[in-house]
């Protein structure tokens, strides 16, 4: 009984901090969802774009730039990284996953070059979280308000965009590229723009994270992809993915629920090093579930690969 109470108390005390963190990381989940679901372009760039955004933001903050400028430049850097991945795939006909791995490997060196060292403290530099109304800066509430507000704006804008003529065209490229092309849609522009946009969100997340935690690290992206995937799957399990609205809500809902779950596991005494194994097993289980449910026999000889 005592154990349960301790676990519960430490979990509850961590809820605000975890919520702030999850609202910031929701942008990576969004950056993973857009290529995977909307563009049918399984992409790993976010693992490199997230620290890219962080490093760019860190360097700019250290140089005395305003937090908003740092955020904007990080966003543009992420956009360019995503464009590169899509271009590598389209121009050289390299598999999307391999193009993403190439990009994220190269980005590691680039991130190191940008910072000049493996980590950089920007503690005390002004952040976007200082601008939260009514609350004292530096507390989780400020982060929750600012990150939540940005998230809400992005969510509303994307939901509107994907229902415009241009947005419908981009979704068509993901649904059936041959058909989209035959309907006069430039598949290259849509893919490069879409993957770029997704990576821009990943980079924004990295930049927000750096402003939140007060330091940038080249290794901050390690494992972010699998965390993001796990969050996305939880989100889709909760709100579904049948409509544009639901699909867009899934990353945000998923991120919030996933990081609370992680926090609960840690509060319950799970050793932090085991976290990646647990997350990996969870994602595996979510991916395997439909095929286990479908048939008891061996897997079909030719089944489409699940992404």
């Amino acid at each position: 009984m005592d154990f349960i109470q301790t676990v519960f108390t430490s979990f509850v005390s961590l809820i605000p901090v975890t919520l702030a963190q999850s609202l910031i990381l929701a942008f990576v989940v969004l950056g993973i969802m857009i290529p995977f679901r909307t563009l049918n372009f399984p992409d790993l760039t976010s693992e490199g774009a997230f620290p890219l955004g962080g490093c760019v933001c860190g360097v700019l903050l250290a140089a005395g730039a305003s937090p908003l400028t740092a955020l904007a430049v990080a966003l543009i850097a992420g956009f360019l990284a995503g464009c590169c991945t899509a271009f590598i795939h389209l121009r050289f006909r390299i598999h999307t996953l391999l193009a993403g791995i190439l990009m994220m490997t190269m980005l590691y060196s680039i991130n190191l070059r940008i910072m000049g060292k493996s980590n950089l403290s920007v503690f005390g530099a002004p952040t976007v979280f200082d601008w939260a109304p009514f609350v004292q800066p530096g507390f989780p509430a400020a982060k929750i308000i600012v990150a939540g507000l940005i998230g809400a704006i992005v969510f509303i804008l994307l939901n509107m965009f994907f229902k415009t003529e241009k947005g419908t065209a981009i979704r068509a490229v993901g649904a059936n590229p041959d058909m989209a092309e035959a309907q006069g849609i430039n598949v290259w522009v849509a893919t490069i723009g879409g993957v770029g946009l997704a990576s821009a969100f990943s980079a924004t997340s990295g930049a927000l994270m750096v402003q939140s935690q007060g330091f940038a690290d080249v290794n901050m992206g390690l494992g972010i992809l699998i965390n993001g995937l796990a969050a996305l799957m939880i989100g889709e399990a909760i709100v579904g993915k049948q409509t544009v609205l639901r699909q867009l809500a899934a990353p945000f809902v998923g991120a919030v629920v996933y990081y609370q779950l992680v926090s609960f596991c840690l509060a319950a005494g799970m050793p932090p090093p085991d976290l990646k194994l647990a997350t990996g097993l969870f994602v595996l289980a979510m991916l395997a579930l439909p095929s286990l449910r479908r048939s008891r026999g061996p897997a079909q000889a030719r089944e489409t690969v699940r992404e």
Partner: protein
Amino acid sequence: MLEIRSARKVFYKGQADEKVALDGLSLKLATGEFGVVIGSNGAGKSSMLNAISGALVLDSGQILINGDDVTGMPVHKRAIRLARVFQDPMKGTAASMTVAENMLLADLRSKKRTLRQGLNASRLAAYKERLALLGLGLENRLDTRVELLSGGQRQSLSLIMAVGGSPDLLLLDEHTAALDPRTADIVMQATVRAVDALKLTTLMVTHNMQHAVDFGHSVIMLDAGKLRLEISGEEKAKVTVVDLIGHFSVKTDRMLLAS
């Protein structure tokens, strides 16, 4: 109108399995003409259609639509002028999107896509009206995702999408071949009605000799990447299935059975 000038395309050039798909093919289709393309497998029918749509880049030769040279244009630019219905119902529609969204995509084929809302009330009403012409009940399923429709319904939707906006050129690539006889008939009747009503310049590839006899103003027969035969006017009106089959270089009973 459509004009193909000595189009040539060779696959696997210089290799042991070199294949001449189009061997100096020239063809003219007048505005408003409905041409039916026949020919045995490997005669170059699909290559010709792909060359016209832009999916296949020619080694040499030219393709003109309404007098404009489109030879160097990518698929999405040519889409402003032409529409295509594929043999495979899966290919012509976006499965995970709704009927209305698919209609919207086709509607915007030759227009500039803006940042305005895609599906508005007036568009939805127009799509409803157009789909009602098919008599398949699709007008009441605008919000259904296309993957939930049957093959025949999907193909009918593809057709309505293709003829909407009156393209300069309509390409039909064995578009009833994958359907059951009754559905194939519905889709074919709808095709003829639309082509007649809108006076569309149309090129239809078919293996069905009865269709070649019944429909269209001319029959174009391809063989080994060349134009082998063109029957039009009076002669086309009198042609029979047996006549057509007689022209196939390899005469097989299968062709007759297929009709």
